[in-house]
């Protein structure tokens, strides 16, 4: 049984599935914990920064020249310049380290950089140093692991030490610096490694798990999800410096060259995943077109940048496009949920978590007050949560679809049962009726015939006149019996249906019923004999027969109008009377609103994928309306 379920849905049982998720999330949190603790407990020394902007220049200065150039500018301008760095500007920072520890210290800018950072320092006794960190193509200065700009302030510098930092970065830039001892810094790096180890492990588990599901379910949205997670992993490797540290130590400048391309792939995979998963194309065409625009822009801009055309405005446009895609991520699942896509609920959670984590990251970056020390933990945490929640959303979809399927199956089964019961009941009822006709009418006629013949044979002294009278009576009796037999045979099997078609059969049925029940009738019947097969035609006939029986029995009607129209892909039949419009047995409150004949008619129609409606207007009459699609 379990095996069957697994084959059909590609998923183990619901409970097992929830257990797997709960366990994996708990294990994940446990594995992330040590890295987090170590990374966070390395206490840095915070130095206050002063900053100013100058026009960009790529000149290199000696320490003295740098201080001469920047000094005047920096000390005059107010500190706390925040906001976007304009593309044609570089930013200067200055800071003073007041205490000296006697050992080497590490000054770090906790922000992944795409540009170049220069640093100049001099102590009170005139000793000086100069260093550069950079990832921009075509050069790369990358002395220390990680992608944060880190510089070593020598231990023999005597406080106070004046430090000057010049940042030339593409895109957003505002930060605080941290200064700590080499030991503390190494411990911090170790903690980060642990954290990222767990992070990569978890993301890879999600990736392979969903790859397996994609293979099992043959569902494109799983593949797109896998691609999305893969892009997240690669871009994290680029941004955090772990790729540089462990995967491609000899490659120079890969980060700044390919980061935008990977980010574009991420946008393509993410947006496509969302569109396929939630069926956006069907829900809202404008949104779908917007997503195509974002995808196209992301790919085009990133390709330009990667091929070496790197003007400053291009980076700005790329950031803008990423911003649009974030808005799209946040809006689309909400729209889908509001339009009735129930499984969008986890997607909303997932896609709000990541932008929120990005917002927190930038807020922390600009406020300078760091809650969670290595800043990119915010982003990594956001990504991880997003990955998990999206995976849950995929599982949720299967779950909801399976629930729907089960509900529909249950409904169908109960309908089938009801119809079968109805059919048996009807059959019994009809047999009862036929038995009654055979016994009471035809049997009666034959009995009289038999007695009459016996009389003729027994009384040989009858006069010729009497005999003729008796014979005449017997002949009438025979005709009576014949009429009864004909009616019975027509009811049991509508011979006309096959020979003369539906319209003639229906009109004859109406004519006979009208004669018997004192009913006036009119019919407007399109010729659909060529479009219906025998099963459908006999269903139309039987349903009208049943409706007519109901009218004769219960409706107290004087007119019945039947129409059969050829309406595009289906035939639509209406049987309308002018009776009481009340259901049979209306006085009995326990009686269900639709009588037995109704469920029988409905069952017959729905068995052939048709629809059935019963419209009652008390005092005005009843209309039975149904449609059968052509095959």
């Amino acid at each position: 049984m379990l095996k069957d379920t697994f084959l059909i849905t590609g998923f183990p049982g619901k409970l097992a599935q929830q257990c797997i998720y709960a366990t994996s999330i708990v294990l994940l949190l446990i594995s992330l914990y040590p890295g987090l603790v170590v990374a966070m407990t390395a206490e840095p020394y915070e130095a206050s920064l002063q900053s100013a902007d100058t026009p960009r220049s790529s000149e290199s200065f000696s320490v003295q020249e740098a201080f001469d150039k920047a000094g005047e500018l920096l000390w005059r301008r107010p500190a706390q310049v925040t906001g976007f760095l304009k593309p044609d500007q570089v930013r200067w920072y200055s800071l003073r380290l007041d205490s000296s520890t006697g050992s080497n210290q590490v000054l770090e800018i906790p922000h992944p950089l795409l540009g170049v950072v220069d640093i100049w320092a001099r102590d009170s006794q005139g000793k000086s140093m100069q260093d550069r960190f950079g990832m921009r193509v075509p050069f790369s200065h990358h002395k220390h692991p990680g992608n944060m700009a880190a510089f070593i302030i020598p231990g023999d510098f005597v406080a106070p030490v004046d430090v000057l930092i010049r940042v030339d970065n593409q895109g957003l830039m505002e930060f605080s610096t941290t200064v700590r001892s080499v030991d503390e810094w190494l411990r911090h790096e170790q903690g980060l490694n642990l954290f990222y180890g767990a992070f990569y492990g978890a993301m890879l588990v999600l990736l392979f798990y969903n790859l397996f599901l994609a293979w099992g379910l043959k569902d494109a949205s799983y593949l797109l999800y896998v691609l999305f997670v893969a892009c997240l992993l690669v871009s994290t490797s680029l941004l955090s410096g772990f790729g540089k540290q462990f995967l491609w130590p000899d490659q120079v400048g890969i980060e700044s060259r390919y980061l935008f391309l990977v980010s574009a792939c991420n946008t393509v995979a993410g947006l496509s995943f969302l569109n396929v998963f939630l069926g956006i194309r069907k829900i809202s065409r404008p949104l779908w077109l917007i997503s195509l625009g974002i995808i196209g822009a992301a790919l085009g801009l990133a390709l330009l940048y990667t091929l070496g055309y790197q003007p400053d405005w291009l980076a700005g446009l790329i950031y803008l496009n990423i911003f649009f895609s974030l808005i799209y991520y946040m809006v689309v699942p909400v729209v889908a949920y509001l339009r009735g896509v129930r499984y969008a609920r986890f997607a909303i959670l997932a896609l709000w978590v990541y932008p929120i984590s990005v917002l927190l990251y930038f807020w922390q970056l600009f406020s300078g007050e760091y809650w969670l020390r290595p800043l990119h933990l915010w982003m990594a945490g956001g990504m991880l949560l997003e990955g998990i929640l999206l995976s849950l959303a995929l599982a949720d979809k299967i779950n909801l679809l399976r629930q729907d399927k089960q509900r529909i199956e249950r409904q169908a089964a109960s309908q089938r049962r009801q119809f079968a019961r109805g059919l048996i009941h009807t059959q019994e009822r009809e047999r009862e009726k036929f038995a009654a006709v055979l016994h009471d009418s035809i049997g009666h006629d034959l009995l009289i015939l038999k007695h009459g013949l016996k009389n003729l044979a027994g009384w040989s002294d009858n006069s010729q006149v009497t005999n003729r009278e008796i014979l005449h009576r017997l002949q009438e009796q025979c005709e009576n019996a014949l009429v009864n037999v004909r009616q019975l045979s027509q009811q049991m099997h509508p011979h006309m249906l096959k020979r003369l078609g539906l319209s003639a059969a229906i009109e004859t049925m109406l004519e006979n019923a009208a004669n018997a029940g004192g009913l006036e009738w009119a019919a407007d019947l399109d010729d659909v004999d060529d479009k219906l097969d025998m099963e459908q035609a006999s269903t139309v006939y039987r349903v009208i027969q049943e409706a007519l029986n109901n009218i004769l029995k219960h409706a107290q009607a004087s007119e019945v109008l039947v129409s059969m129209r050829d309406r595009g892909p289906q035939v639509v039949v209406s049987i309308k009377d002018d009776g009481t419009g009340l259901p049979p047995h209306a006085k009995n409150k326990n009686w269900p609103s639709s009588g037995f004949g109704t469920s029988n008619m409905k069952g017959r129609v729905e068995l052939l994928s048709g629809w059935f409606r019963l419209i009652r207007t008390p005092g005005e009459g009843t209309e039975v309306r149904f449609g059968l699609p052509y095959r």
Partner: protein
Amino acid sequence: MTQFHSSSPARVLIADDHPVFRQGLRLVIEAHPLVEVVAEAENGESALVQIRYLNPDLVFLDIAMPDRDGLSVLEHVRESDNATRVIMMTSYHEQAYLNRAMELKVNGYLLKDDSRDEIIQCLEQVLQGGTYISPSFSQSSLCIPRDFSDIRELKSLLTEKELKVLSLVARFMTSKEIARELNISYRTVQNHRLHISRKLGLRGIHQLSRFARRNLQALQQLEANETGSGG
């Protein structure tokens, strides 16, 4: 039409799946001097083949037969040949069968409980080129309602109220619905309908509604004119 004389009796084929009935019918019609029964068929296929091969002058056809029913045989015969005279001899007395047979240009329609005299009368009339239909069918049911191509004629026959009722009948409404629509009583609607039917020579609301639907356009035009001149 060929006339049959005693010198050359009509060649007759009898198609029916009941042997006793075939024999009985054969006895009845062979007594007639102008008739010679040349073949019998016990199902539709056999009847069709024999008709094509023997080319009889007259065929007695049953409707309910195995393989192929009588109407289908008649349809196939009429595809190529209108000269062979065909008399339907059946137990179906429903109007619809008769209508279909008439469409297929049947020459005679008899019911199996018709008397020997009626069979002979039918035989003679058909052989003389006429058409004979069993007297069990009432003549009035055969009347086909006439179409009014000229609206003015219709307008001169019916009152304004009756025309309104007729146009609602054309829209397939019940008397109750018409009564509500025109804000008059149910009885009044029924009276109107009765009068219309009598004036137009129609029987029952089926014929009335068929007539109304056939003249729907004319009625709508009339209505439009009314409201146009009224407003």
